């Protein structure tokens, strides 16, 4: 005997779809009444069953509308993307139900019940977030303890940076080389002088007063730019034929990779000055920058080495057979390909670096997260930890997501595959 399980087909499609949609509708209606209006129509059923009613109805409904090809675009799209099997249907329902359950409360906290107006904690009367806290402290979050009237110097430095970087996309390729050299070697000095001052009639501002988001940018940018070439040479060194270079590279990499960043920072602040001759003083921020740079360079070296190893031996041989020496072979043939291969890994390291910057609090430097940490302990603003950290998290996310997108674009642009 052949058991004929009811299945939709071309002929009875309309009736199946209407019955199926009806079931799905009941499922969703029950769930929505339960969640938002606290009405439980299925309360007469045993607890477990009552709880599962939306899922059961949803599954039955989705089963009834599952047809291989109907010709209706909406129905086909639903079937292909959310409803290709019973298991997929279950997952789709679970995801949709949890979105319905959790998104509205989040939105309420973020926007609808949140307070934006006012200047003190007492202005926050709603049950949502108190964005007044972020608004009042925004200046500190961005500039740290940098004096208000001198903040134009930070702004100028960053505007100059953005202007130069932006310009580098538009100038002809001949000028671009000089612009990049300027950006790499001269701009950092200008920027540093502008922000720290001490010359040209600018008031000296010690690095301890730097802070907030601008410090996050300064630390990240310096470390990113410097750790890359160092990592590159370490990677080459680790593959060198000369034992002295190879073993010192291995030693350097393994030493820095084996130590937690927080320890390195602490040592740079506390132990390093002990090795300096009396009277010499290296600024705290510079010590921290060097420490982070060397730390990340060790990671960068291993990422780049991965790319070097992925390159076929034939590339080296072809370069050699054309009469290229070690440096030409590496800079013209090997590194361009190896670096392209490891763009995802490089981006990974860069993102990790940006997110590691808050650790500089151990030496008393407060970047964005550090400033949030400080502000939330202010007696007038107690209990604002959530808003502060959510804000800091969002800012970090925006920075990191932008970097991630950029790396993906770069990958696409440099791809020479078919």
């Amino acid at each position, binding site marked *: 005997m052949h058991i004929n399980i009811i299945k939709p087909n071309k002929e009875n499609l309309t009736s199946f779809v209407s019955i199926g949609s009806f079931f799905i509708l009941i499922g969703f209606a029950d769930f929505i009444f339960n969640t938002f209006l606290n009405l439980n129509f299925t309360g007469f059923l045993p607890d477990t069953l009552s709880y599962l009613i939306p899922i059961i109805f949803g599954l039955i409904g989705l089963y009834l509308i599952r047809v291989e090809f109907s010709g209706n675009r909406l129905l086909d799209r639903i079937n292909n993307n959310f409803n290709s099997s019973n298991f997929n249907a279950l997952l789709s329902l679970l995801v949709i139900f949890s979105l319905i359950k959790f998104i509205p409360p989040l939105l309420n906290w973020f926007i609808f019940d949140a307070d934006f107006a006012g200047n003190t904690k007492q202005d926050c009367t709603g049950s949502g977030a108190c964005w007044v806290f972020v608004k009042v402290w925004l200046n500190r979050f961005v500039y740290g303890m940098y004096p208000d009237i001198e903040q134009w110097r930070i702004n100028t430095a960053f505007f100059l940076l953005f202007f130069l970087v932006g310009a580098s996309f538009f100038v002809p390729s001949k000028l671009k080389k000089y612009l990049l050299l300027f950006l790499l070697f001269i701009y950092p000095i200008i920027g540093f002088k502008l922000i720290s001052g001490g010359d040209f009639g600018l008031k000296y501002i010690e690095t301890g007063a730097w802070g907030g988001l601008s410090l996050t940018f300064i630390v990240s940018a310096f470390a990113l730019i410097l750790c890359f070439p160092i990592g590159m040479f370490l990677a080459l060194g680790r593959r060198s034929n000369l034992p002295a270079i190879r073993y010192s590279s291995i030693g350097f990499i393994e030493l820095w990779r084996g130590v937690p960043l927080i320890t390195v920072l602490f040592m740079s602040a506390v132990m390093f000055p002990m090795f300096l001759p009396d009277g010499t003083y290296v600024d705290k921020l510079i010590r921290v920058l060097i420490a982070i740079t060397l730390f990340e360079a060790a990671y960068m070296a291993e990422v780049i080495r991965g790319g070097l190893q992925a390159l*076929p031996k*034939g*590339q080296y*041989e*072809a*370069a*050699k*057979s*054309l*009469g*290229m*020496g070690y440096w*030409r072979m590496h800079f*013209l*043939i090997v590194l*361009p*390909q190896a670096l*392209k291969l490891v763009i995802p890994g490089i981006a990974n390291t860069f993102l990790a670096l940006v997110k590691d910057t808050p650790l500089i609090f151990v030496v008393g430097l407060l970047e964005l997260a550090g400033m949030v940490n400080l502000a939330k302990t202010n007696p007038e603003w107690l209990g604002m930890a959530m808003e502060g950290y959510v804000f800091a998290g969002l800012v970090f996310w925006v920075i990191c997501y932008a970097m991630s997108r950029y790396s993906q674009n770069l990958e696409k642009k*440099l791809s*020479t*595959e*078919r």
Partner: protein
Amino acid sequence: MKNIIELKNVNKWFDKFQALKDVNLEVKQQEKIVICGPSGSGKSTLIRCINRLEEHQDGQIIVDGNEISENTKDIEKIRAEVGMVFQQFNLFPHLSILDNCTLAPIWVKKMPKKQAEEVAMKNLERVQISDQAKKFPGQLSGGQQQRCALARALCMEPKIMLFDEPTSALDPEMIKEVLDSMVDLAKAGMTMIVVTHEMGFAKEVADNMIFMDEGRIVEKAKTKDFFNNPKSDRTKLFLSQIL
């Protein structure tokens, strides 16, 4: 005519395995030599020793009057005079066909960019892929890639060309286009050492044939003699199997 390459009692080991045993070879200018033999017989190792992609441990290799050893200072200079075409093409995938050809002339020979491009286009024309100059290697067929590799080597204006099984990685129908380019090159008077199993090509082009087995040169003879009355039994066996 004088010898441009001389190998005297060359021995080479990979760890314990001896890849070359007492190899003696003289190549005159404009001479075309085809090396054949079973796989693992040391053919590739032999020609890779000539531009020192492999190092020999014993004996003398003299290329264009310079002895090649670990003491050779400017090995790059010698390599620049010895072009090589590989089995796997080994084009640079991140550069266009034109850039593949101009890179070494610009950076090694210090040729002005414009002149290098002219030379490159001339050589691409010679191997009939000048219309592909702007493409990347990944967009070309195997035969086109190998011809580009040939053009790339020619752009350095080498005195000697080494071919390491240039057609072994190609589809049958693409072999001919590569061999045609190589025949043209031979007719133009290039000194060539070719490792290949293409016996038709060997008969057409080679002045001398070399048969290698187990790291030794078993037989070296004029091409006609080699095919018509090979002396050693090993050669006879090999030829009977591949012809």
